[in-house]
């Protein structure tokens, strides 16, 4: 549940948190989900998003792409889709609870070795091209989400970010020839103690008890929706 609904967790801001505001936001999120189906997806899944566009001939505009990043909390949760269209790389940022979004379809539900695929910007175009008429490949029910063990090759440097300093599991041969000065600076910038820092992890996350409460709320909300559906079916 925590992986399927990650946006329900509020911002771990220890100085100021308005619990009433969070409850109201969660209520709004549930109302939106009652109207439009927001599917489960992860970074690395291929999505198709149709938005209402006043200037389009059919009043809707559809974009297909691989989800490279997810961020934001509660109602402001966003995700970025990347695709290479007609030879030019395009990235579209969408807010999950934006009422202009008509439909979100998951064409291929899968995960990748990394939580963040922004390094695809520095990769050859084949790794980011997905045809717009891609057919949805539904996963059989009860199956765990597959992890695509693809290891991507980066373009020769210069890069947009210092990929050699980050531990990217989804990148093949994440080494790069550095000058002596760069090597020294890279060594100095490493923080190997951070993964052992429990207080840092605690401060950057929500209390386990609260997480449990929120997920239970979602579970009960889903049960309520299923009951309503059954009643409707029985009535009709």
């Amino acid at each position, binding site marked *: 549940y925590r992986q399927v609904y990650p946006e329900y967790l509020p911002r771990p801001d220890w100085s100021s948190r308005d619990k009433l505001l969070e409850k109201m936001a969660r209520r709004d999120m549930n109302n939106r989900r009652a109207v439009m189906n927001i599917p489960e997806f992860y970074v690395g899944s291929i999505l198709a998003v149709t938005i209402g566009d006043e200037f389009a001939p059919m009043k809707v505009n559809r974009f297909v792409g691989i989800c490279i990043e997810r961020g934001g909390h509660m109602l402001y949760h966003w995700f970025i889709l990347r695709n290479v269209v007609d030879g030019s790389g395009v*990235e579209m940022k969408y807010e999950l609870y934006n009422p202009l979004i008509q439909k979100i379809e998951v064409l291929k539900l899968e995960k990748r070795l990394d939580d963040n695929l922004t390094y695809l910007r520095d990769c050859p175009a084949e790794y980011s091209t997905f045809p717009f008429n891609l057919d949805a490949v539904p996963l059989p029910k009860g199956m765990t989400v597959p992890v695509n063990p693809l290891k991507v090759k980066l373009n020769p440097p210069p890069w947009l970010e210092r990929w050699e300093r980050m531990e990217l599991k989804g990148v093949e041969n994440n080494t790069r020839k550095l000058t002596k000065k760069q090597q020294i600076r890279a060594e100095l910038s490493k923080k190997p103690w951070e993964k052992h820092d429990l207080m840092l992890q605690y401060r950057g996350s929500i209390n386990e008890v609260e997480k449990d409460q929120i997920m239970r709320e979602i579970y009960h909300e889903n049960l309520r929706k299923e009951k309503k559906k059954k009643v409707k079916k029985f009535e009709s």
Partner: protein
Amino acid sequence: NFSTTAPLFELRLLSRVNVVDNSKIGRTAAATGRPVKIIHVYNKTGVAKLGDKVLVAIEREKRKGYIVGCKQKQNPMVPKFDANNIVLIDDGGLPLGTRIKVPVPSALRKRATPEFLKVLSLAPRFI
């Protein structure tokens, strides 16, 4: 010692730009590899954004153009491209090429100036 900002990918004076239509001058610039640089932005601020008109130095000539794709971070629902794309126009406002190769942001259709609409009519698809 001097301070730097985060990479903003702004289009300003002397920023290189990618010509995206099939005009003759655009094709020769791409073939020879001579960079196409902005020399003036028709804007109150010196920063050119999506849909702004710019004056560009290309093949030892001065041409005007419209920005049709930006590397800069955009608002949600507005596409961000991997290259800064530009479509060239002449002084009269007519586009120099007859076709655009890349997709064009749908949000640009909000700008209703007749000159810009002539450029948008060449777009193969709106993203």
